[in-house]
């Protein structure tokens, strides 16, 4: 693996590229940061941003189909397409679509060349509201319909947690203070209660809501600068648990699992207590704010800093799109679920455009402004992905908008607009007389692609309980979707998504 050297000089050079007139990490970087050169093995990084609801019409969400210039027959009966993303510039604004737009100074040709926009990735059953689906725990849905309700007991770890505890992903934990930084909204990240042994219950990994807490987690105080006078006590604490676990007093199996789980957490604590991330330098904690937009911005700063200096290589952000437009009322009911009405649709477009520009694009731009090797930015070494809860119809996860930045360290071919939909009568999802639109490939395949791009092989996740034979996630395909699928859609779900691999 290559060694990356970050220096103060390089950081400052990177900061010069940050747009929106914002200084780079204004609350985090002190004057003396990055004063020394340090080395670490970054490996590919993964940053997922998840937003609620969806509900944006495809005509506003996706670029114009005229960009599609190439097609191929993936399976008999399924022709897919791709094209190069091309921005249009009007004054100081640039856009790929109504939602995917921003300042022309930020959404540059260079950055567009590092994007992918994926059309036609479905959760192929009626999942309705969920938070777990973004990263692969489809069981964490709200049970709005019989499909979703039927799988609520079939929890699975999410891909961020698989990566976090995968020996293939973290081949070295040097400098890694937090395996996966989960911030913003809850319900997104799920893992084993005993993650290193991949055993126990699947439980939620709670998100850190505020930037100061996230900062403390990822930039712990670290060991004292002077030589410690006493040995750390964690080993001995673990011994107390082990003694109880292995003693002859009466325990249930669940008690023993509890003790195992706790010991596993203590072992990770021990690792964290002895981890030094010199690359992060003498960073300064951000302040606390109750303003949700400012809070998201500060969380983004912490994420950016942590990814940049290798304190973590995985971050998940939950972002509420409803905060980005002035609206007083019940966003969920009055806007998201009235998506087909003009007024609410305009608000959904406005909100999601704002999230794209002010959060997702901003993060990408920041990461692209930091050169960590000649000609290579942090963004280049990262896979950023933005997914929404639903497609254009809330409750319906057909064609979940999926937008990415970065090549994940060279894994992905970028600058593409890809259409996986089966644009035939057979590919049309119906419910009785109602027509919902074209189905495409499985979202499970996107998750499997993410895992493989991050170096986590199929052998590490294909046999996980509740996973299917292919792809990642409960392999439920309901009747309304299955009739739209040609042979190969399900069987090929463990393959890297077509057109994407460099």
């Amino acid at each position, binding site marked *: 693996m290559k060694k990356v050297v970050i220096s103060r000089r390089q950081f400052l050079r990177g900061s010069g590229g940050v747009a929106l007139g914002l200084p780079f990490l204004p609350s985090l970087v002190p004057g003396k940061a990055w004063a020394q050169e340090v080395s670490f093995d970054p490996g590919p990084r993964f940053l997922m941003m998840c937003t609620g609801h969806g509900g944006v019409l495809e005509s506003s969400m996706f670029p114009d189909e005229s960009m599609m210039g190439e097609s191929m027959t993936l399976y008999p009966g399924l022709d897919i397409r791709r094209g190069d993303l091309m921005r249009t510039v009007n004054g100081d604004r640039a856009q790929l679509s109504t939602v995917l737009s921003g300042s022309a100074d930020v959404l540059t040709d260079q950055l567009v060349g590092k994007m992918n926009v994926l059309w036609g990735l479905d959760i192929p059953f009626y999942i309705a509201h969920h938070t777990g689906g973004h990263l692969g725990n489809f069981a964490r849905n709200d049970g709005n319909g019989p499909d979703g309700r039927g799988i609520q007991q079939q929890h699975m770890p999410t891909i961020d947690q698989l990566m976090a505890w995968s020996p293939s992903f973290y081949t070295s934990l040097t400098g890694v203070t937090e395996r996966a930084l989960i911030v913003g909204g809850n319900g997104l990240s799920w893992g084993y209660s005993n993650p290193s042994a991949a055993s126990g219950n699947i439980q939620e990994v709670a998100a850190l*809501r505020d930037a100061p807490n996230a900062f403390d987690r990822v930039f712990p105080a670290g060991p004292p600068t002077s030589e410690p006078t006493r040995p750390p006590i964690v080993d001995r604490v673990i011994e107390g648990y082990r003694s109880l676990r292995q003693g002859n007093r009466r325990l249930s199996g669940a008690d023993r699992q509890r003790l195992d789980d706790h010991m596993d957490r203590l072992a990770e604590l021990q690792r964290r207590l002895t981890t030094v991330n010199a690359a992060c330098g003498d960073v300064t904690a951000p302040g606390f704010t109750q303003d949700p937009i400012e809070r998201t911005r500060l969380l983004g700063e912490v994420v950016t800093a942590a990814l940049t200096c290798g304190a973590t290589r995985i971050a998940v952000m939950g972002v509420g799109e409803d905060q980005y437009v002035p609206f007083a009322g019940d966003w969920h*009911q009055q806007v998201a679920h009235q998506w087909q009405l003009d007024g609410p649709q305009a608000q959904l477009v406005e909100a999601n455009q704002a999230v794209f520009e002010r959060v997702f694009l901003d993060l990408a731009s920041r990461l692209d402004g930091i050169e960590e090797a000649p000609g290579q930015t942090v963004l280049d070494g990262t896979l950023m992905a933005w997914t929404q809860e639903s497609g254009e119809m809330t409750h319906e996860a057909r064609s979940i908008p999926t937008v990415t930045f970065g090549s994940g360290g060279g894994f992905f071919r970028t600058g593409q607009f890809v259409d996986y939909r089966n644009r035939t009568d057979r590919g049309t999802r119906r419910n009785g007389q109602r027509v919902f639109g074209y189905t495409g490939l499985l979202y499970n395949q996107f998750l499997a692609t993410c895992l493989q791009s991050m170096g986590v092989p199929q052998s590490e996740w294909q046999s996980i309980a509740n996973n299917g034979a292919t792809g990642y996630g409960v392999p439920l395909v309901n009747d309304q979707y299955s009739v739209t699928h040609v042979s190969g859609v399900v069987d090929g779900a463990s393959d890297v998504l077509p057109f994407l691999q460099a």
Partner: protein
Amino acid sequence: MALLLLGGCGGAIDGNPNGAGPGQGPDGNDGSESAIVGDGTPSDRSDDAAGGQGPTDGSGLDGQGNPRDVGFICDPSAALEGQSFRRLTQRQYRNTLEDLLAQGLGDAGQARAVMDALQSRLAALPPDERFRSAEDLHGSYRRLDQAVGQGHTEGWYRVSVDAAVLLTEPARLTQLAGTCATDGVADNDDACLDAFIDDFGARVLRRPVDAEERAFYRGFYGTTVGEDPAGYADVIAGMLNAPQFLYMVEHGQDDVAGDAPPETFELSAFELASRLSYHFWDSMPDDTLWEAAASGALLDDAEYEAQVERLFADPRTRATVREFHRDWLKLEDLVELDTNVGFPVFETFAGDDLPGPDLREQMIDEALDMLDHHVWEQSSDLTSVLTSDQAYPRSAALAAIYELPVWDGAGEPPAFAADARPGLLSRAAFLATGSASTRPIMKGVFIRRNILCDTIPPPPDNAAANPPDLSEDLSTREVVEELTEQDGSVCAGCHATNINPLGFATEGFDALGRARTEQMLLTEEGAVVGMAQLDTSSVPRIFPDDETVSEGPADLMGLIADSGKAEACLARHYFRFSFGRFEDAGADGCVLETLRTAIAQGGSFQDMLLAVALTPEFRQRSFATASQEAP
């Protein structure tokens, strides 16, 4: 308009608890949990649909085909598997730490000072979430959140290290371990450390320390010769990370006699003391309870009952019960009421009662005060709570909404005119929506699920995909009927029969909880364009076969109170809170029936709250291992 469709019920509410049970099955489809909105906190998607899953496993209820039989089946031989140590909730952890420090230092003021110094560490601990599961997708009791993640383990560790440093400052160490720890006399150092481990350690572990454990904790001190505050600090930190401190570790003692299921054991005296103190106080045993455990007297029935009575009468129990009420009624789901201030529609609607930032909490407090007053001052039964005319507004803003004087918190509370606003469910906390519109669907869903423990099937796919156009001259009820009760629609099956009627009964109160006789119709610009007539009559079908007409809230509350379903439902909820888990269909029928009968047969809330600790099951623990668990 804040509405969404519900449907797919086909009229089949689970009125027969046998095999399905009130609220037994996964009951939420409303998405109220964990949606990503706003500041990242869960959104209220509660209107999405009311659906609950139908029968899952048999509820332990005795129905046998009679939909009006609300009892539970008691089978003492039914086995319970998969029980594990319960971890302390965050409330329990904080209470325990403070009580431990007060006991150890012999100075409550010093204990508080240490807790204050630990505040930032304590604040970083992961909060207990209202545990969401298939049984209660809205979120159940914080006590059910038993997850232990990295944040917990690390948070506890950091608290322990900081606490240990604070406790071993010279003056405090003398208070904690005696003068022998700081007197500079070498001869007494070993004995001093042993005595400290025995005394302080016993309270930390909540049982006496044996010789092996004494040696183990001496190991934290290390091999330092002489007095070493840092050594004491490591001993303290080690103890505060012990499984016996962070979890309620139980090993049991004797086999349970009779027809109890296998692998069920009576708790030891110290285990029982902890179970009692954490149940009632959310904290560790006090000296009196400790002595009863140490002497073994606690295992005597008469002494045990006396201790139960003593703990129950202690003011600390009230705080615990208040937390139960808060979670049971999902009061945290009440939205902030001032977010729409500044918008013309809301300003016109609210008029002189424009909410301030504290009104939400005042409404929540009023509901809790009402329950407190009924439970502790009046020793009421559930019917009284459901039908009382008394109100408890402590703020001028809430009193204005009620058009009543402010309650001073001590005297006789003011009262509404008879039957004008009967019972808990017509209080503002259950009516306010934060917008200008009432939410009859949500009100109906709440009552159906949380008060009656009925389940509602999920709505059909995309039930909300094509809402009809609405006009500006319909009342909220008319809009809801238009949306959800169209003849032949898939929605009508549930909404027309089982959801909407429960919510329509309180349409005589607006979205701030004010009484009204007609509904103001507003444009988006806040202009009043008319007044709509209100209709609070409905057929609420407390039981599926009950066609009794309700004319309004008084009738509805009476029907609920007379049904017996609310008592059975409350018993189920209090079980969850008490045992920190969802009920097992077979194994928990005896406890559930005990709780139900305690409050259903002329009993009071207090009778039920006490009854749980007097059940045999409260004093037992199953160690049966489920097949998939660790060997």
